C-alpha cells in the first residue's frame, strides 16, 4: 500500500486509543503482576504465583480444565449438525440463525442460569416431566453435569456463529462439483465443509474455552457452592479472604496458562470476532 503524507498524518487519529491502551490495559496488567509478585513479607517473591500448585488450587484448576475441554467439545459436537441443518434448510440467509442465537443473550445471563437451576433441581421441571413420562428422576443438582449443561448452554452461540459464518461462505459450486464426481454427503463434509470451516472453528474454540474455564457464576449457582472452579477461588480471595496478593498470583497463573493454550490453538487470529457475532 502506498503511504502518502495524508496516510501518515492519519496515524495521529489513534492517539486517544493508544493512551487508553497504556492507561487501562498495559498499566493494570503491570499492577496485577506487581501484586502477584509481592510475597507475604512485602518483598519480591514467587510464592503466590506458585500457589497454583497447592493441592486445593490445583484440584480447582484441573476441574476447570475438564469443564472447559468438555464444554468446548460438546459445543463443537452440537454446532456442526446445527450448521449443516440450517444450511440444508436454507435458513441462514434471512438472518434467522443470528436471530435465534443472539436473542437469548438479551435475557440476563444470571437469571437464565438460575432458571436452569430450577429446571435441573431434584424436584425441578425436568424431573417433573420425567416422572410424567414414567421415567426415573435424575440427580443433576449440584453436580459437575449441571455445571457442564450451564456452560454449554451459555457459550454454544459463540461456537455456532463463527462456524456458521465460515460454512456460509463456501462456494455452492464446489459442493455441487464434488457431488457430480460421486462424493456422498459424508465425503463432502470431510473433504470440503469441515476443512473450510476450520478458521470459524478456531475462533469458536477461543471464544468458548477461555470463558468456560474461568467463569465463577455458573459453578456458583449450578454447583451449589461445593464444586469450585479456579474462578470461584480467585473471586473468594478478593471478596471473602481479602488476600489480594494470592488472588493476583492465581489470576496471573491462570492468565499465563490461558495465553499459552490459546497460542497453540491460534496465532492471534481472532480478528473478525466482533463481526462474527453480528
Amino acid at each position: 500500500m502506498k503511504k502518502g503524507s495524508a496516510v501518515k498524518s492519519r496515524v495521529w487519529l489513534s492517539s486517544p486509543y493508544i493512551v487508553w491502551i497504556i492507561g487501562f490495559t498495559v498499566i493494570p496488567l503491570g499492577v496485577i503482576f506487581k501484586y502477584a509478585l509481592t510475597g507475604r513479607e512485602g518483598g519480591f517473591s514467587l510464592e503466590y504465583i506458585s500457589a497454583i500448585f497447592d493441592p486445593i488450587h490445583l484440584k480447582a484448576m484441573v476441574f476447570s480444565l475438564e469443564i472447559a475441554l468438555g464444554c468446548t467439545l460438546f459445543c463443537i459436537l452440537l454446532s456442526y449438525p446445527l450448521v449443516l441443518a440450517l444450511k440444508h434448510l436454507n435458513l441462514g440467509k434471512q438472518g434467522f440463525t443470528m436471530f435465534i442465537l443472539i436473542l437469548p443473550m438479551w435475557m440476563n445471563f444470571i437469571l437464565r442460569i438460575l432458571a436452569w437451576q430450577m429446571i435441573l433441581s431434584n424436584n425441578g421441571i425436568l424431573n417433573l416431566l420425567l416422572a410424567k413420562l414414567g421415567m426415573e428422576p435424575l440427580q443433576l443438582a449440584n453436580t459437575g453435569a449441571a455445571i457442564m449443561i450451564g456452560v454449554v448452554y451459555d457459550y454454544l452461540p459463540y461456537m455456532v456463529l463463527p462456524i456458521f459464518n465460515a460454512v456460509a461462505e463456501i462456494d455452492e459450486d464446489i459442493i455441487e462439483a464434488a457431488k457430480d464426481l460421486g462424493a456422498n454427503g459424508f465425503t463432502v463434509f470431510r473433504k470440503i465443509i469441515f476443512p473450510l470451516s476450520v478458521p470459524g472453528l478456531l475462533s469458536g474454540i477461543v471464544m468458548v474455552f477461555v470463558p468456560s474455564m474461568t467463569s465463577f457464576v455458573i459453578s456458583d449457582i449450578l454447583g451449589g457452592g461445593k464444586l469450585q472452579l479456579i474462578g470461584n477461588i480467585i473471586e473468594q480471595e478478593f471478596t471473602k479472604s481479602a488476600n489480594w496478593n494470592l488472588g493476583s498470583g492465581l489470576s496471573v497463573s491462570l492468565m499465563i496458562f490461558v495465553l499459552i493454550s490459546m497460542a497453540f490453538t491460534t496465532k492471534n487470529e481472532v480478528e473478525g470476532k466482533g463481526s462474527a457475532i453480528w
Partner: protein
Amino acid sequence: MVERLKNLCSRCYIGLIILFLYAPILVLVMLSFNNSRSRVTWGGFTFDWYQKLFSNGQIMEALVTTLTLAFTSALLATLIGVLGALGIHAMRQKNYQIVMIFTNIPLLNADIVTGIALMLWFVHFIPLGFGSVLLAHITFNIPYVILSVMPKIRQMNVSLYEAARDLGANALYAFFRVILPQLASGILAGFFMAFTMSMDDFVITYFTKGAGVNTLSTMIYGEIRKGIKPEMYALSTIIFVFVFLILLAANYWPQKRKSDGAHVVENL
C-alpha cells in the same frame, strides 16, 4: 423420500436446539406471571409484578444505571475505537501488529482477570463507583468496535477520499461525506455490539463497582441467596420482548439501499 427424511431430521434438530436455548427463558417469562413469591409453586396468573415493577425504586435505579452505562460506554468506545482503527490502519506493519496484540488482550483474557487488574489499578486513583465502572466498560468495549470497523476500513476505497480532496473538499468535509458513509455499517455494528456487551457484563462490573452502585446484573447476583424479586422477572421479560421486536423489525424490514460514498463524490 431421502430428501424429505433429511428435511425432517434437520427441522427436528433445529427444534431441539431452540428448545435448549429458550427453555430457561420460558421459565423466566412464566415466573413473571406467577402469582406467588415462591419459585417452585404456580400460584395462578397475575400482572401484579408488572405493576409493582415501576414503583420499585431500587430496580428502576439499577435499570437507569445499566442503560446509562451501556449507552455512554458504547458511544465513547465507538468514538475512540473508530478514530483508533483509522489510525492503526495507517501504521507501519510492525506497529500495527503490536497495537492489535494489545487490542486482543481484553478479548482473550478472562473477564475475571481483566476485572481484577482494573480494580487493583483504579483503587490507586479513583473511588470505585459509577466512574470506575464506566472506564472499565469503555476498555472492554473498544476492541469490539475496532474489530467491527477494521474490515470496513480495509475494503474502503481510498481513491474516493483523494478524489474528493482534489475536487476541493476540505479534510473534514471529505471525512464526513466520503469516509464515514463507507464505514457506517461497521460503526453501527460496533456500537450495538458494545452496547450489548455492556448490558450483559457481570464479572468486570462486579469487581470495579465498589459499594452503592448496582447494575441489573450485580443486583440480581446480590439477590441469589435471598431470592430474586419477581419484579425482576417482569423487567427481564419486558426487555426481552422489546429486543425481540427490534430484531424482528431490523431483520425483516425491507432494506433501504445503502449509500457507499461513491455518489457523493460524483455530486461534488
